[in-house]
């Protein structure tokens, strides 16, 4: 079993179809509020887990550190995340960057979706825009997207 073999199983999946690539110019990084959005199906223990095919999102409280990995696929290493959450959701590193003034602030809230979806239309048209609006309304300027 090798990582390259697993990657080969999915590397030719069809890409999302967007006519144009949206492009937003952010404020200077030192003034920007940064959030993490992950497709690792992270959730707090008191939130609903993600079912396979779940296209909804969970809001993650940045002051907590109890993020359970809910992603149903067996096709990734999960011990790196178990050992150090920053392997997937690098909030400690962002806190350090904020303390050094490299970024303006770390958002109080972050977000998780379930990756490995075969039907992306709901995320593209419904839950994606809804989650984006929610984060934008919290004052987020820059989003770091992490997979598993």
């Amino acid at each position: 079993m090798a990582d390259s073999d697993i990657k080969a199983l999915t590397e030719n999946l069809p890409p999302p179809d967007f006519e144009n690539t949206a492009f937003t110019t952010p404020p200077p990084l030192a003034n920007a509020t940064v959030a993490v959005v992950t497709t690792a199906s992270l959730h707090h223990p008191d939130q609903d887990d993600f079912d396979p095919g779940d296209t909804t999102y969970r809001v993650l409280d940045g002051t907590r550190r109890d993020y359970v990995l809910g992603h149903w696929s067996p096709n990734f290493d999960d011990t790196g995340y178990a050992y150090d959450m920053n392997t997937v959701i690098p909030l400690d590193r962002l806190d350090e960057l904020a303390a050094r003034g490299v970024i303006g602030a770390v958002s109080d809230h972050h977000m998780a979706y379930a990756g490995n979806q075969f039907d992306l239309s709901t995320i593209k048209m419904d839950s994606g825009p809804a989650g984006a609006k929610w984060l934008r309304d919290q004052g987020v300027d820059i989003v770091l997207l992490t997979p598993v």
Partner: protein
Amino acid sequence: MSTLAHVFEAAGMATIALGSIRKQIESAAPPRGLWCDFPLGRPLGKPGDPEFQHRVLDAAFALLDSPEPLVTEFDESIPDDGEEMLACPLPPRHDPDAHPAIDEARGLRTAYDRGLEMSNGRIAAGRVVQADDIPAAIEAFIRIADGTPWDEAGIPGLPMRVSQDIRGYYETAALAMVDHAPPAWAGTRWFLDATETGKVLLAARKEMERQEAPQPMWFYLTPGDR
């Protein structure tokens, strides 16, 4: 994930997508993408290595300087040789009347509880099967491996989620038995290739395929290349 990059960017936020699979991130063409040739599940590369993680973040944030969409690559790869396996001691036989996998799972409980505390439960059992019920879940797969029809074996939930909890139970226990960040996939290889329960799961998967169970029911019990 690149779908979210397009959607969030359109909502007025600048995005940077980290990607582990080169073809995927290049074909999806997010507004800003950084291909990191790291093992799947480790988008920041190295657990327990803040300096390395900062290097990845620095490269990611540097993409914000581009005046137009850009997908580029991180300057260091983390290879996986496909063979490294954790060296975790397995408990000695305690109950000679129990199936070796059941005896083994029970014997790992102390290590699991310790690993649970160390990892804050991040990959622990409990999504559909609580730790106390892991031996019973393993028994269902033993029955399948012995020829019981898969849908009569008493799997306590969706098979892929049950196997995920069993794997999480073992890998959480493994964390307590090593004193370093585990290399990618080394914990999974240990579970599948060195433990009795791993052998049961692989045998049950093969038997479910033979029984012509729906493909998702058996395929996702283990990583796809197994």
